[in-house]
């Protein structure tokens, strides 16, 4: 009944299990247990890009998409969003630095899934977005989803200004009711 382990077992056991545990604990040490800091949008960005619509967090679109948007401010989804060169440069830099990026986990990195080689300009056209809103899109089958239906994130995601889109934080009886 007294099963002692032989030397080989002990060597292999401690070697392998030890390595795995070292790996595991190492991760805890490196990454820490605390949550990543809360989303803090740049004030100028919010002023320039949040005057007419919700200031979408830069992390919702890849850099290429943001660049495309900044290039076309004169016809920004049928509106004019031009600004002076200095401001445009500042905003472009802010967007590029905080954009959605492959290999950079964030609270929005699920939007990276199945990203096409040429990223779309609209967040709502991201495959990751469509996947995340599959049931809503299903519910709305047959309804005229004119462009802009999903654009006001804050209508359903009541903590969108903090960059939080968790399912648990949706408005009750969610829908475009706040307008």
């Amino acid at each position, binding site marked *: 009944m007294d099963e002692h382990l032989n030397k080989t077992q002990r060597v292999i056991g401690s070697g392998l299990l030890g390595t795995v545990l070292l790996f595991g604990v190492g991760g805890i040490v490196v990454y820490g247990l605390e949550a990543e800091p809360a989303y803090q949008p740049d004030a100028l960005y919010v002023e320039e890009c949040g005057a007419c619509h919700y200031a979408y967090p830069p992390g919702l679109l890849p850099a290429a998409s943001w660049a495309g948007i900044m290039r076309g401010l004169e016809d920004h989804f049928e509106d004019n969003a031009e600004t002076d060169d200095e401001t445009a440069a500042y905003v472009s830099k802010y967007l590029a630095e905080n954009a959605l990026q492959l290999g950079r986990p964030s609270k929005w990195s699920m939007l990276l899934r199945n990203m096409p080689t040429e990223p779309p300009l609209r967040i709502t056209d991201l495959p990751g977005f469509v996947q995340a809103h599959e049931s809503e899109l299903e519910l709305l089958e047959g309804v005229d989803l004119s462009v802009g239906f999903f654009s*006001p994130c804050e209508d359903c995601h009541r903590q969108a200004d903090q960059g939080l889109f968790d399912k648990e934080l949706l408005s009750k009886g969610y829908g475009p009711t706040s307008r």
Partner: protein
Amino acid sequence: MSLVYATVISDVMIEEYKSEAARPFTIEAGFETWTAVQPNGRSCNTCHGESLRIAGSHQKTGKRIEAMAPSVNPDRLTSRKKINKWFLRNCKWTYGRECTAQEKGDILLWLSQL
């Protein structure tokens, strides 16, 4: 000519536009420029609303736009940068071109007493 709700900024800018304007600025011209509906169906009222003393809403996104009238909203006409920016964006959207110094001066004058 300085009006009830004029600000230092609006006064200065009106002065600057004078040199490039063909005619003296009038309140009536400002009102006309602001409210005239363009061939594309747009006017400044499209977003700012029929009354500038209450908030309007963006014609596409529905986002609230605070009242334009300085009598109600003391923030208005206090930043040259903001005035320039919105002239740039909104004239181009409404008229398809930038506003002339004449138009800008008329509008600022009109707003200064609203």
